């Protein structure tokens, strides 16, 4: 297999904080590689080093079989581009944003226009060309960011949590774009994510990260097939819990995740099990409502994160559960910090990882 990029014994230290420690990683041509790990595990720093906008403290970065030294950085940057997690755009039109990298590469205007048209069509932003980029919604801005990167046809496309903070519709569009880019344009993709589902479906390989180290590398089947200690330690990932599972007579499984919380899952498992509940699958109410949901818990809101049209809430029911609702619901329900709420989710929405 052809190696596009390689990191050897790489470390990165900011002040007295070691962000990356002894990283060894190979990125193969044409693959989608996911960096899966909780926040603060070093994924973003690793991507910035692969994008050549951050220099490692020690270790070696090889790109297309050549060690990249400080003086080669600007050349290497032309072949590797990063889409940031935080949507950011130049204060100009959508068109000019996408044109930026092509102008740097001195692509003639005719060819540039054609490329931009294609990229805009690809991310489904037709008709947005003349709009001010910063007036777009979060999802549209993220799609713009992808178009701005795609148009450069770099060897390596790096994506930092591309669908975090996006509503399901925009997230689905983006995932489709990433898969198509990889399949049809043969672009090598490295993406950071803490979304286990994304990691399960999109990439060919996964590198598990925690505390600045790569703890395991393998295919999704290898990583998710066996319950690794590393994956189980992912408690920092939203709504991922580990506990002892026992089968019930009803054909479901009860997982005891601690603090008196028994989660019912529509699957048959025994022994140590890790489960995940998608924040979008949780129903939030101010009183206990009769429903078909097998899992209903009372708690209070301990964190509120405004994502524009969506609001992410952390509800403490003995363990913190992340719940995602629309801003409209949030306002209409008069929710706030410390509000007492009920969360409910179906046993079939409990995913066993």
């Amino acid at each position: 297999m052809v190696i596009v990029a390689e990191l050897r014994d790489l470390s990165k230290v900011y002040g007295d904080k070691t962000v990356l420690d002894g990283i060894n990683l190979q990125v193969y041509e044409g693959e989608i590689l996911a960096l899966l790990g909780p926040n603060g595990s070093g994924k973003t720093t690793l991507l910035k080093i692969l994008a050549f906008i951050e220099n490692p403290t020690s270790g070696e970065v090889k790109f297309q079989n050549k060690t990249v030294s400080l003086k080669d950085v600007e050349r290497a940057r032309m072949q590797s581009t990063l889409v940031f997690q935080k949507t950011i755009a130049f204060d100009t039109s959508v068109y000019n944003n996408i044109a930026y990298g092509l102008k740097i590469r001195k692509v003639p205007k005719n060819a540039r226009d054609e490329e931009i048209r294609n990229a805009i069509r690809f991310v489904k932003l037709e008709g947005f060309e003349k709009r001010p980029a910063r007036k777009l919604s979060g999802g549209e801005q993220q799609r713009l960011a992808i178009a701005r990167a795609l148009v450069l046809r770099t060897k390596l496309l790096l994506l930092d949590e591309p669908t975090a903070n996006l509503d399901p519709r925009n997230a689905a569009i983006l995932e489709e774009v990433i898969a198509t880019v990889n399949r049809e344009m043969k672009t090598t993709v490295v993406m950071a994510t803490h979304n286990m589902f994304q990691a399960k479906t999109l990439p060919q390989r996964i590198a598990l990260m925690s505390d600045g180290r790569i703890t395991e590398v393998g295919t999704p089947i290898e990583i998710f097939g066996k319950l690794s200690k590393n994956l189980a330690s992912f408690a920092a990932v939203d709504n991922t819990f580990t506990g002892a599972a026992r089968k019930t007579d009803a054909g479901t499984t009860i997982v005891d995740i601690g603090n008196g919380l028994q989660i019912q899952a529509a699957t048959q498992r025994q022994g140590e099990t890790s489960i995940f509940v998608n924040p979008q699958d949780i129903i939030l109410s101010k009183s206990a409502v009769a429903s078909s949901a097998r899992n209903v818990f009372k708690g209070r809101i301990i964190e509120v994160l405004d994502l524009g049209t969506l609001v992410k809430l952390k509800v403490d029911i003995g363990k913190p559960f992340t719940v995602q609702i629309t801003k409209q619901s949030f306002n209409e329900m008069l929710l706030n910090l410390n509000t007492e709420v009920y969360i409910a989710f179906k046993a079939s929405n409990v995913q066993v990882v």
Partner: protein
Amino acid sequence: MVDILGGIIKALQMILSGDPVLYGILYRSLFFSGIAVILATLWGTPIAMLLGLKDFRGKTLVKTFFNSLIGVPTVVLGLVLFLIFSKGGPLGSLGLLYTPGAIILGEAILVTPILVSIATTAIEAVDPEIMNLSKTLGASESQASLAVLKEAVNGVLLSNIASFNRAIAELGVALLVGGNIAGLTDVLTTAISRYTARGDLDLAIALGIMLMVFVFGINMIVIAARKAKFLLTLGRSPQ
């Protein structure tokens, strides 16, 4: 008793009739202040970019230095420059004293702190990730810095306008290093002081009106430009 109303009417008549003395003074004021701001922009913008984009030891000290100098009395700076440009001074051999060159240079130095301070603030207000965004799209260090400067263009423009206002309205430097020589180095402010002292109040009032019209006019343009920011934004390319 001074006939204020009569003075204003006469002054307006002079302005409307296109009095060559008046317009000569106005032209010199605009020209000297304009060139001074261009000079200050040429050396002040790189300083602002350095202060806004780079971290280095003593940065706060440098920023404080420029901030403090904003309020320097123009007459004190005028005196210092007079000593430097006068015959026995370190730059006396250049023969700049009482020439337009001395006024232009003096005003450029005068407005540099205000230009650097406002432009630095504008550059610092740009999202630091813009630099990384430019780089990851292939920009070199200098291209990325330029992209940040373009994002701060409104602030940089404001720094130019504030500098121009300060230059055109100051008296001390123009008076002390320009010498207020009629037809050569007299500008709106120095001419007002001369005509007032002489009792030529019609001329002084006319010049005063012109100065105010320009200062107000520039501010009106700034407000209009801010309103038109949306249009400016669309036409601007980040490169």
